[in-house]
C-alpha cells in the first residue's frame, strides 16, 4: 500500500517522469513561494477529487467518465478559489491566475483516469497525496533555482546579493529559464536513477 504513496515522489514523478502538467510547472515557478503555493492547491484539489471519483467509480459510466471528472475537478477548484478570496484575500491575490489554472492541470485528470477511477478509496488517497507532493517538490526546487538566479533571493530573502558582482540573470525568470532549469533537473534525475539502479 505504501508504494502507492512513494511512487509519485520519484519513480513515477508526475513532472520529471510523466512530464505532465507542464503549463503550471513552467509558468508559475518564477519564485519558490509560487511553486510551493501551487503545489499545496494541487494537493487539495487532487486529493478531494480522487476521494469523490474513487467513491463514484462504479457509478460513473465509462463513456462519460472524462466530462464527469472535469466537472468534479472544476467544482473543487472553484471552491478553493472562492474560499481563498473570502478568507485569505492576500494569498488569493498572490496566487491570482494560478488557482483557476488547476482545472487544466492534466496531472489531476491523469490520476483520475489512471488510478482513482480503478482503485478503492485508501490507495486513491495515498496515490493523490504522493503525486501532489512529487509535483510540489519539483516546483519548489524549480522556483527556488529560478528565483535565486533571476532575482538573487530565495523565498524573498536576499542571498546572491552578498556575492560581489552578482547581477540578476533575467532569462531565468522568463520562459526559457523554466525550460533550461527543468531540462537540467530531468538530466540530473536520469543520471541518479541510472546510477542507483546499477
Amino acid at each position: 500500500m505504501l508504494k502507492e504513496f512513494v511512487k509519485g515522489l520519484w519513480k513515477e514523478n508526475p513532472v520529471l517522469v510523466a512530464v505532465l502538467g507542464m503549463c503550471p510547472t513552467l509558468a508559475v515557478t518564477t519564485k519558490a513561494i509560487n511553486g510551493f503555493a501551487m503545489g499545496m492547491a494541487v494537493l487539495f484539489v487532487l486529493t478531494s477529487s480522487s476521494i469523490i471519483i474513487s467513491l463514484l467509480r462504479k457509478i460513473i459510466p465509462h463513456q462519460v467518465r472524462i466530462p464527469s471528472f472535469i466537472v468534479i475537478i472544476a467544482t473543487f477548484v472553484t471552491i478553493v478559489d472562492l474560499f481563498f478570496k473570502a478568507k485569505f484575500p492576500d494569498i488569493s491575490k498572490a496566487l491570482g491566475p494560478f488557482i483557476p489554472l488547476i482545472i487544466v492541470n492534466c496531472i489531476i485528470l491523469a490520476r483520475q483516469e489512471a488510478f482513482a477511477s480503478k482503485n478503492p478509496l485508501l490507495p486513491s488517497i495515498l496515490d493523490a497525496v504522493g503525486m501532489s507532493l512529487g509535483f510540489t517538490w519539483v516546483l519548489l526546487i524549480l522556483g527556488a533555482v529560478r528565483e535565486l538566479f533571476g532575482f538573487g533571493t530565495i523565498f524573498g530573502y536576499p542571498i546572491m546579493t552578498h556575492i560581489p558582482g552578482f547581477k540578476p540573470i533575467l532569462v531565468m525568470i522568463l520562459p526559457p529559464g523554466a525550460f533550461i532549469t527543468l531540462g537540467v533537473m530531468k538530466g540530473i534525475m536520469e543520471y541518479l536513477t541510472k546510477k542507483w539502479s546499477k
Partner: protein
Amino acid sequence: MKVELKMVIVLTLIGFFSGGVLYLVNNATKEQIEENLKKETLKAIKEIFPNASNKLPKKIFIDRTTSYFKIHDEKGNLIGYAVVAEGPGFQGDIKLLVGLKPDLKEIVGLYILEQVETPGLGAEIVNPNWRNQFKGKKLPLVVIKQREPKTKNEIKAITGATISSRSVVNIIHNAVEKVKKKEGK
C-alpha cells in the same frame, strides 16, 4: 439499465450536485468577498490620500470599467479624485486605483487592485518600488525603457514587462479622460 440512460442520469446528477455545492459556497463567501473589496479600496485610498476621511465616499459610476470617488479630508475640503479603472493588460484585465489632484492633471499615487500578469515580470506592477514612481507625475505620461526618468511625464517600464507597464499607463489615460468629461474639466 440501458447505458445511454445511465449516462444521462449520472452526468445530470453530477452537474446538479456540483451546481448546488457551488451555489452554497458562493452564498457563504459572497458578502465576505465584497467586504474585502471595500476594505481594500479604502486601504488604497488611505494609502494615496493619508488625509482622506475614514469613511468610503460614494462611488460615482461612469461606465462598466470606470468609476471614481471624490476625496474629501476631515473638514470637507476636496483634496482629490480616486479613479477606479479596468483595462486590458498583457494576460488579462488590470484593475487599478489612481489618485489625482483636484485639477486632474497630476497623479498623487497609484494602487493595483487586481491583475493576472506574469508572476515575477508583469505582476511587479503591484510592487511599491515600481508604482510609487507615479507620485507627482504629470499627465500625459510617456513610457520609457532602460534609463531613469528625466521629466515629470516619464514612467520607467519594468524590465521584461513593457506591455504590462504600458497597459497601466493607457488605463490611467483613458479613465482620466472620462472623469474630466464627467466633471467638466
